[in-house]
């Protein structure tokens, strides 16, 4: 997310169609008066969005490693490209979070299918996947940053209840999206692990189960 916006820079031209939550939060903060006490809130917001951005960049870099592990240099490059765009902050108004989720979901879906098929990876592929998982593990500190800043904002006495609710709703959506995307990668990593065993097994759909009703 575009954390540069925490003090509503003069050059910012909010493109609301792009659903830029950081800009929306800043709008809430700046609505009313430019109170000096709100600098603290702005600082916490900066920590919040910087941490979220860090999570996105690290997770996308991890996703790139996992795609590379699967043998798809093209998909790995797409993830790195997106990570780079997010890092520059260019995607705050271009639905970067949605793209982030889409990339991780696609990876998780692909690995899940490979895992169900029981197809294993080579040692080199496993090492690359492990590298990706380590990057994911590295986001723990950033998640702590997200949580701490969110709690501080919630306790901020300079914000009235309506402001807190408005900011809370936006932030909760952001956190959920980032958590979903991280969850996709965790699920992908679990699927990687099961590839070295006998492949994942799962319950059948109702339609398929009906074919086995006589068993």
């Amino acid at each position, binding site marked *: 997310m575009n954390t540069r916006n925490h003090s509503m820079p003069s050059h910012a031209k909010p493109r609301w169609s792009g659903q830029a939550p950081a800009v929306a939060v800043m709008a809430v903060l700046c609505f009313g008066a430019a109170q000096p006490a709100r600098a603290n809130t702005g600082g916490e917001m900066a920590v919040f969005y910087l941490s979220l951005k860090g999570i996105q960049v690290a997770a996308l870099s991890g996703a790139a490693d996992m795609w590379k592990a*699967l*043998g*798809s240099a093209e998909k790995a490059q797409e993830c790195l490209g997106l990570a780079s765009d997010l890092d520059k902050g260019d995607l705050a108004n271009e639905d970067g979070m*949605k793209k982030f*989720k*889409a990339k991780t*979901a*696609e990876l998780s*879906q*692909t690995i899940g*299918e*490979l895992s*169900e*098929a*029981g*197809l*294993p*990876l*080579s*040692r080199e*592929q*496993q090492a690359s996947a*492990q590298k990706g*998982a*380590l990057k994911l*593990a590295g986001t*723990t500190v950033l998640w702590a940053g997200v949580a701490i800043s969110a709690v501080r904002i919630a306790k901020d006495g300079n914000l009235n209840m309506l402001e807190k609710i408005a900011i809370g709703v936006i932030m909760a959506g952001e956190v959920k999206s980032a958590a*979903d995307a991280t969850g996709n990668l965790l699920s992908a990593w679990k699927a990687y*692990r099961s*590839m*070295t*065993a*006998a*492949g*994942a*097994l*799962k*319950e*059948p*759909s109702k*339609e*398929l*189960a009906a*074919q*086995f*009703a*006589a*068993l």
Partner: protein
Amino acid sequence: MTAFLGVLLAAPMCALAASVQDGAAMEVRYCGIGFLGKDADKKNNYRYLSQSVIKDNASLGKVSPLLLSLTRDANTHLHIVDDSSNGSNYSLSYIIAGEKYERQPFVYPLTHQTRYNNIFTVMLNTVVFDLQQGQVIGIYPWIFQYNEASDAPLADGDIAKRFGEFFRKPEPVAEGEEPPADAMLTAWSKSVGGLAMSFKANTISASPVQFSEDAAKLIMDGGSTPEVMSRDLTTRYEAILSQSLRLPVIPSGGGGAGAGDQFVAAIPSCVGQGEVTLTLPAPAYRFAFDVGVLKSGSVVHSVKRGPDGDQGTVDQNEVGYGARIHVQVSQTDESDTVNHGKLILDNRLRAINAKTYIGKREFSDGDQFGKLLVNFMTQTANNIVDPQEKWFKEHLSAEESKTKPSAVQSAWSKFVKEKLHVNPKEVAHK
């Protein structure tokens, strides 16, 4: 597993519970590492490990202290003394009981290139025995399987190297990280960490897995051999039961062995050159897992792609494999030459597993049935330890449509508590 060599002899022996005093924890003398079978057959039975871990006494001598040290670190409740002058009647050895290597070609869907699935299996048993009496007290089997892909078929030397590497000292793993998938001894340590050797423990056995005629035909059509699959599955069931119930197993190895059969192993650090021949006692309980029906099926779903379903729809294939299993448990009675004991549990269950994919995949039906059955063995063993009514609701066969799941749950629960004397909570905490 191919390496279990049960040489038949007829001399029924008493079960562990009857031959030793009750109550006390068992103290054992560490007797080193060895391998099942005769030294002369080593190269035939262990094509790869005979080039590394069990190549000679020096090689065995390197691994032996590592296994002991890992055991002591993982399980502080075991009384293992490392002193040959110790007067304990009982000895403990780690016995390599099998190695297996399979190579399966497959088309990798992302690159459409042919690759190879290299499947490595190692069986490493913990064996407690009475050397003076020449008798096995109990065997705790453990199986490790590891799959690894390669772009080209692996050379013999590379395969042997990989098998040897499984016995390396586990690498330290930072908190929050997971050990490498091929860290065999890390996984083994966890298993040994749960061992509890007690004079009160019942011994158990898995009867050789049997297939109905129709099921055997499907297995053959799927590219496997029923005899080989039966042997593999029986060995798996022994290990799964032993691990789940924390009880020692008297192996039948798929060959129909029983009380009085011989257990032949080479353990140089314990008995010098040559082999030690021990007698297997009769198990207190036998567990049967017979396959009555095997069936496969498929269905095509139209599914949305993308996290928000905004990338259009595609056809998704779902294939399923199912089986009807006849699970029986009987209390052994060697004097009962007709029924060989009293039947305690007798239920028919159904197992179904599915996998979904987009595009084209190739599956070996034989492999898929094998995976299904091993997976269901684990579920069955878990429900022997801690029976769940919900599981029986889902898995009782259509042939038992009039049986109440709660009644089955109650019967299984009674068996594990009153006969096996296994407390699910205790087992879960070990």
